[in-house]
């Protein structure tokens, strides 16, 4: 019997109440939002519950939304996978822009260690309790977080690649 979206939703809502919301089927993946303060409990529940069994953390990454309200400027996206039922789930946790921080998953999934380091490296999201939260792909001396939208990809003074010449505004690129 396949694992139904409604079953997952009912189970999560009855256990966590208001901390899980905005359930929707996004194309082929069922996704939901969680309250970032409760992320470890929710993910541990998804992993260990005998019916849900989302035992594999496929992917973890960050996103920067500078246009969003102040308490939703960053998001951490978890993709989890249940191999028994072959069901994937996407979990989003929004964080505030001033001081983005969320609890680490590295005690639940060993694999999240480097994924979280990568997210910290590029977005500056602080993973509370991470055993070794330091830069991983960029050099240690770097002071900025390059995947944030305000970080320019190349020298802003260049004029030869100006998008306005092609009938676009800068925001449109």
């Amino acid at each position, binding site marked *: 019997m396949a694992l139904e979206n409604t079953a997952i939703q009912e189970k999560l809502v009855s256990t966590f109440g208001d901390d899980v919301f905005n359930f929707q089927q996004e194309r082929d993946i069922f996704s939901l939002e969680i309250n970032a303060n409760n992320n470890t409990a929710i993910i541990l529940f998804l992993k260990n519950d005998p019916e849900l069994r989302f*035992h594999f953390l496929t992917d973890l990454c960050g996103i920067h939304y500078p246009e969003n309200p102040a308490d939703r400027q960053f998001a951490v996206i978890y993709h989890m996978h249940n191999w028994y039922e072959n069901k994937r789930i996407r979990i989003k946790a929004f964080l505030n822009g001033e001081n983005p921080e969320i609890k680490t998953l590295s005690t639940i*999934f060993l694999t999240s260690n480097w994924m979280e380091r990568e997210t910290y490296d590029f977005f500056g999201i602080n993973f509370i309790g991470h055993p070794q939260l330091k830069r991983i792909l960029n050099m240690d001396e770097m002071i900025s977080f*390059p995947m944030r939208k305000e970080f320019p990809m190349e020298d802003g003074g260049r004029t030869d690649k100006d998008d306005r010449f092609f009938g676009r505004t800068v925001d449109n690129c």
Partner: protein
Amino acid sequence: MSELLLPPEHRYAKIIKEQLNEDGNELSILNLGPTHPATHGIFQNILLMDGERILDAEPTIGYIHRAFEKIAENRPFYQITPLTDRMNYCSSPINNMGWWMTLEKLLGIEVPKRAQYLRVIVMELARITDHLICNSILGVDTGAYTGFLYVFQFREKVYEIYEEICGARLTTNMGRIGGFERDWSPEAFRKLDIFLEEFPVAWKEFENLFERNRIFIDRTVNVGAISAEKAMAYGFTGPNLRAAGIDYDVRVAQPYSSYEDFDFKVPVGKSGDTYDRFCVRNAEVWESLSIIRQALDKMPEGNEYHAEVPDYYLPPKEDVYNNMESLIYHFKIVMGEVPVPVAEIYHPVEGGNGEIGFYLVTDGSRTPYRLHFRRPCFIYYQAYPEMIKGALLSDAIVILSSLNVIAGELDA
């Protein structure tokens, strides 16, 4: 001696200072890499060693980090393939096709059956070259150069097939949204037939050289073993996971590009050691060959090689010169003015090393809002320090090459 190699504040410096063996020997530090022929790529490991035995390791990665995710946010969709083939450069067509399939999922494009089969063929060829390099280099690292020299010429044969398909060899930039940029030439099929005839003979001989070879078995059995639970916790996928005994394969779990039409086995190992990884890759090459043969047999008639999606697929050049509509489409595609829905897509494909995932977030503009690559190498390389603890230095080299860590995919 150790002071020269390590800054005094490094945690190993303290361990060395405090740890004095009874016989007066002290622990030592060895820098494995970043540039050494035995590491097959640029990664550094600072090893804490007791004689020849490794006590601890600290990996440093990022030496060839090229910020692909940032670059991708500034490029129109069709310009992102060249970034993907620089990730796992041993099997770039798989990455290319994975990226096109992500876009097709986003745009809701149905690819014709024949183009899907052609994609399957080229992806399986890529898997063969990937495993061929990994296994033959593993042979070189255990001291057997012959097998490597013998099978490596077949990688060249596969590259000639790529050349016939897309004109490039290593960084292929193959395919377009909806299919391929041109139909495969008869020469490509002829070369494929020759390859299918000659390669199995050589691969059988290669297997015979290693599988029951006393020296090879002594060097690989019970070296770098990892249990199924540990492998899963570390996010292993692909041959390295299957060697530990779990039959998870994206081609079976979530078939893409018509993989459900083909009959193939998912080889699994038992102990997750270096020898099992070698055997799983060997067996997968046979399955890939069988898939290619089936695809050639079942290939639909006709010469359809792309979907009819004029919004996204470049029209033929003659039409652009002579036909108003084609000129408009051509201009719009090149300038990136194509309609793109706002969506979030995750598309996994089975790469040479495991599940390559593309997580794409669009906001309706001509570039991705966010593109994240799930790179299997990056994820399983973090288990490396644990796998080499207690092993000998020469085992560390063998384990590294049996994991098939590709620097380009590790660092993206």
